[in-house]
C-alpha cells in the first residue's frame, strides 16, 4: 500500500513521526444502539409471524400485517437491520484498533450510518404496503436498492481509504474478512438488483424463469455467506481473542481457511435448486461444491473453539465466553447441516419443508445472534467506560436464548421431517398415503406453537439484555473527551525494502494498490453486464416455440397481486421429477413454463401445496370462496383470509405500461397486444365476473382485484395442458 509522503524530500531519510489521534467511537455507539433497536423489531416481527402460522386469526385480516407481507419484513430486518448494524459496529470498532487509525472520513461514516437507517425505515414502510420485487432476501423495491448501492459504496470508499492510511503494516485476518464482505456483497447486490421500473414503486427483474432462479440463489446463498458468515468470522477473530485474552489458536489456519473460502466461494448457489428445471450438471456442481464448503467452515469453528484452550473453566463463569462457545458450536452445526442438506437425496426430502427453517435459524439465532450478544456485552462496558450492570442477568439471557433456539430448531426439525416423509408416503398399491395436502399441515400445527414459544423465549431474553444494557449505559460516567492514543506513521519502509531488492515489476504495482484495482474491476464488470444482459436475453426467448403465448394483461396484473401478497412465501411453483410429487401435483415442471416469469416464483417453502399445475383444477367460484375464507373450502387450513381483494378495484389503466416494460424485457407481445391491452383486460375480467355472478356471487365483484388473481391462478400450468410444451 503506497503512501505519497509529499512533504518529505527523497534524500533526507524519512523519520517515522509518532502521531497522536483518537478513535471514532461515536459511530460505533450509534450502530450498537441501532443494533439493539432493530434487533427488537426483527425478533418481534419474527414471533408475530410464527404465531400467525400457528393460528391464522392473528393475521386479523389486515393487509399490512398478513404473513405474506410480514415474513419478508422479518428476513430483511433480521439480516440487514439487526445483523447489518451489528457488523458495522464491530467493523468500525475493530478496524480502527487493528489499523491503529481513525476512520478516514467522519462525514462518510455519518452518511453510511444515517443512510443505512433511512433504508431500513423505508423497507419497514414499503414491505407491509406490498411494494416488493418478489425475490427472497432481495424484496426491496428499486429506489431502496439504489439507495443501498450508494450507501454501500460510501462505506467501501471510507473503509479502503482508512486501510491505505493505516499505521500497522500487517493486515490482521479479521480485516481480510471485512474486505471480502464489502467487495462481494457490493457485487452480489448489484447483479441481483438489475430491474426495469414500471412505476416508482414497481419494477420487474431483467432475468426470467430459470435464469432468474440461478441469479437469485447465487445471490441468496452468497448473501448468507458474505453477510452472515465472513463478517461474523472477522468479528470472531477479533472479539473472541480480546474477550478471552488469548491469541487465536492457529493464525496460520485462519489465513489458509480465509483464502480457500474466498477463491472459490462465489460458485455456491445451485443447491437451492436441486431437482428443479436447472440443468443436471449445474445441480451436481452445486451439490459437490456445497459439500466442499464444509472444510473451510469447520476450519473457522475449530480455530475459534481451540482459542479457549487452557481457559475453558472461565466459560463457566463468564457470559461472554459462553455466548462465543455456543455461537461457534451452532456455526459448526449449521455448516455441517448445510452440506448435508445439499446432497440431492437429502434435499429430495428436506427441500420446501421446515427442516430448512431449522437450518436457517440454527445458523442465525445460534451463530449470528450469540456472536452479536457476546460482542455487545464486551463492547458496551468498553465504549461507555463502565462495568456491566448485572452479570447474573447476562447468564439468564444466555440460558433463555439457548433454550429458545433449541426449542425452535428441534420443533422445526420434527415438523420438517414429518412433512417430507408424509408428502413422499406411497402405500404398496401405489397410491399416496396422504393424498390431500391439508393432512400434512394439520399434523404439524402443534409444532408451530412450540416454535412460537421458542421464538418468544429468544425475544424475551433479548429484552433482558436490552434492560441490562440500558442500565449499564445509564450508570456510565459522562466523560466527553475521547481517549487519545499514539502510533508511528507507517513509512513506506515495506515498499522501499522491496525496491531495494531491485525487482522491476514491483515498482509499477506500488502505485496502484491491489484493493482499488479490485474495486475498479467490479465497476468494469457492472458496466459490461448492464449492456450485455438485454442482448443475451433478448434473443433467447425467440428460441421458445412461437405458439407459446405470454400472460395476458389481466393475468399479469393477477401475478403482480400474487407477488404483492407474498404468496411465494408459502406456495411453490416447481413440481420436482419425484414420483410422490408427480402423483400429487401432475407432470414435473418444464423449463419452458417459466421463461416469461419476471421475477420467477418457484418459491422455497411449501406451507401450502404447490401451485405449478393449479390452472383448471378448481372452478373460479372455488377460488372466489377460498380467498375470502380458506377454512370454508379446506377445513383446518391455516391460510390467512384476503378480504381486501374483494374491496380494491383493479387499476386497468396501468396494465398497458406493464406489457410495454415486459416487451422491452424480451417477452413476445405483439404491437396489437399493447394497443388493446386495456380493452382486452376489461373484457377478460368481465367474462370471469359474469360467470361468477351467474353462480350467485354479488354483482359488486366486477373489476375487483380477486378477478385478476383468479385469472392468473387459472393460467398456471395451462400451456403444458394445451401441449404447447413437451
Amino acid at each position, binding site marked *: 500500500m503506497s503512501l505519497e509522503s509529499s512533504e518529505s524530500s527523497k534524500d533526507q531519510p524519512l523519520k517515522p513521526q509518532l502521531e497522536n489521534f483518537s478513535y471514532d467511537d461515536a459511530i460505533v455507539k450509534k450502530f450498537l444502539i441501532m443494533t439493539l433497536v432493530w434487533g427488537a423489531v426483527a425478533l418481534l416481527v419474527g414471533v408475530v409471524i410464527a404465531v400467525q402460522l400457528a393460528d391464522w386469526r392473528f393475521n386479523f385480516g389486515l393487509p399490512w400485517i398478513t404473513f405474506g407481507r410480514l415474513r419478508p419484513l422479518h428476513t430483511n430486518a433480521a439480516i440487514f437491520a439487526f445483523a447489518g448494524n451489528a457488523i458495522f459496529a464491530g467493523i468500525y470498532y475493530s478496524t480502527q*484498533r487493528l489499523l491503529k487509525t481513525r476512520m478516514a472520513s467522519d462525514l462518510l461514516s455519518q452518511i453510511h450510518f444515517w443512510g443505512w437507517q433511512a433504508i431500513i425505515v423505508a423497507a419497514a414502510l414499503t414491505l407491509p404496503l406490498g411494494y416488493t420485487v418478489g425475490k427472497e432476501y432481495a424484496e426491496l423495491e428499486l429506489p431502496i436498492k439504489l439507495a443501498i448501492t450508494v450507501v454501500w459504496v460510501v462505506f467501501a470508499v471510507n473503509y479502503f481509504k482508512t486501510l491505505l492510511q493505516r499505521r500497522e503494516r500487517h493486515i490482521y485476518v479479521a480485516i481480510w474478512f471485512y474486505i471480502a464482505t464489502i467487495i462481494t456483497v457490493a457485487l452480489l447486490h448489484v447483479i441481483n438488483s438489475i430491474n426495469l421500473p414500471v412505476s416508482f414503486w414497481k419494477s420487474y427483474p431483467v432475468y426470467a424463469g430459470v435464469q432468474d432462479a440461478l441469479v437469485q440463489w447465487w445471490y441468496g446463498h452468497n448473501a448468507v455467506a458474505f453477510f452472515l458468515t465472513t463478517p461474523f468470522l472477522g468479528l470472531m477473530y477479533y472479539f473472541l481473542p480480546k474477550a478471552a485474552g488469548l491469541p487465536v489458536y492457529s493464525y496460520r489456519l485462519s489465513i489458509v481457511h480465509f483464502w480457500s473460502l474466498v477463491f472459490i466461494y462465489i460458485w455456491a448457489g445451485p443447491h437451492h435448486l436441486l431437482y428443479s428445471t436447472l440443468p443436471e450438471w449445474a445441480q451436481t456442481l452445486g451439490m459437490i461444491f456445497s459439500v466442499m464448503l464444509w472444510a473451510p467452515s469447520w476450519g473457522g469453528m475449530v480455530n475459534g473453539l481451540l482459542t479457549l484452550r487452557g481457559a475453558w473453566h472461565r466459560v463457566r463463569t463468564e457470559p461472554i465466553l459462553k455466548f462465543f462457545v455456543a455461537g461457534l458450536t451452532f456455526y459448526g452445526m449449521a455448516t455441517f447441516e448445510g452440506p448435508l442438506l445439499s446432497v440431492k437425496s437429502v434435499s429430495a426430502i428436506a427441500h420446501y419443508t421446515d427442516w430448512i427453517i431449522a437450518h436457517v435459524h440454527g445458523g442465525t439465532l445460534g451463530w449470528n445472534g450469540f456472536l452479536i450478544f457476546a460482542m455487545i456485552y464486551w463492547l458496551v462496558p468498553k465504549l461507555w467506560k463502565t462495568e456491566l450492570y448485572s452479570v447474573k442477568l447476562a447468564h439468564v439471557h444466555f440460558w433463555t436464548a439457548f433454550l429458545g433456539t433449541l426449542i425452535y430448531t428441534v420443533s422445526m426439525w420434527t415438523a420438517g421431517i414429518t412433512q417430507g416423509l408424509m408428502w413422499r408416503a406411497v402405500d404398496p398399491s401405489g397410491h399416496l398415503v396422504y393424498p390431500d395436502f391439508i393432512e400434512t399441515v394439520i399434523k404439524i400445527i402443534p409444532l408451530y406453537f412450540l416454535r412460537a414459544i421458542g421464538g418468544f423465549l429468544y425475544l424475551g431474553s433479548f429484552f433482558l439484555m436490552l434492560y441490562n444494557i440500558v442500565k449499564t449505559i445509564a450508570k456510565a460516567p459522562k466523560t466527553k473527551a475521547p481517549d487519545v492514543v499514539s502510533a508511528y506513521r507507517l513509512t513506506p519502509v515495506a515498499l522501499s525494502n522491496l525496491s531495494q531488492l531491485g525487482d522491476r515489476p*514491483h515498482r509499477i504495482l506500488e502505485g496502484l494498490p491491489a484493493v482499488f484495482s479490485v474495486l475498479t474491476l467490479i465497476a468494469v464488470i457492472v458496466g459490461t453486464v448492464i449492456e450485455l444482459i438485454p442482448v443475451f436475453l433478448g434473443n433467447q426467448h425467440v428460441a421458445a416455440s412461437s405458439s407459446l403465448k405470454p400472460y395476458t394483461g389481466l393475468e399479469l396484473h393477477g401475478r403482480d397481486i400474487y407477488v404483492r401478497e407474498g404468496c411465494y412465501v408459502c406456495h411453490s411453483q416447481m413440481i420436482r421429477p419425484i414420483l410422490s410429487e408427480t402423483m400429487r401435483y401432475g407432470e414435473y415442471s418444464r423449463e419452458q413454463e417459466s421463461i416469461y416469469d419476471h421475477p420467477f416464483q418457484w418459491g422455497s417453502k411449501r406451507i401450502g401445496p404447490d401451485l405449478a399445475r393449479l390452472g383448471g383444477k378448481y372452478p373460479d367460484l372455488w377460488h372466489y370462496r377460498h380467498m375470502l375464507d380458506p377454512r370454508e373450502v379446506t377445513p383446518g387450513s391455516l391460510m390467512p383470509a384476503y378480504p381486501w381483494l374483494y374491496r380494491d378495484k383493479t387499476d386497468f389503466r396501468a396494465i398497458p405500461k406493464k406489457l410495454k416494460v415486459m416487451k422491452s424485457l424480451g417477452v413476445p407481445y405483439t404491437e396489437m397486444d399493447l394497443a388493446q391491452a386495456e380493452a382486452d383486460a376489461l373484457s377478460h375480467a368481465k367474462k370471469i365476473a359474469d360467470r361468477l355472478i351467474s353462480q350467485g356471487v354479488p354483482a359488486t365483484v366486477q373489476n375487483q382485484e380477486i378477478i385478476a388473481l383468479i385469472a392468473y391462478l387459472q393460467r398456471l400450468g395451462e400451456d403444458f395442458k394445451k401441449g404447447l410444451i413437451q
Partner: protein
Amino acid sequence: MNIIYILLPIALLLGLGFVSAFVYSSMTGQYDDLETPAYRALLDDEII
C-alpha cells in the same frame, strides 16, 4: 441456461480479483510472520 455466460465471468473475475489481492499481499510480506500478529492484536493502545 445462458445466464451462466454472465454469472461465470463474474465469479471468475471476482476470483481473479482476490487472487491478485493474495499475490500482492504475499509479495509485500503480509505472510512473513504468522505468529506475532495473533499476539499483537491483544495489545491495547495505552491512552496518553
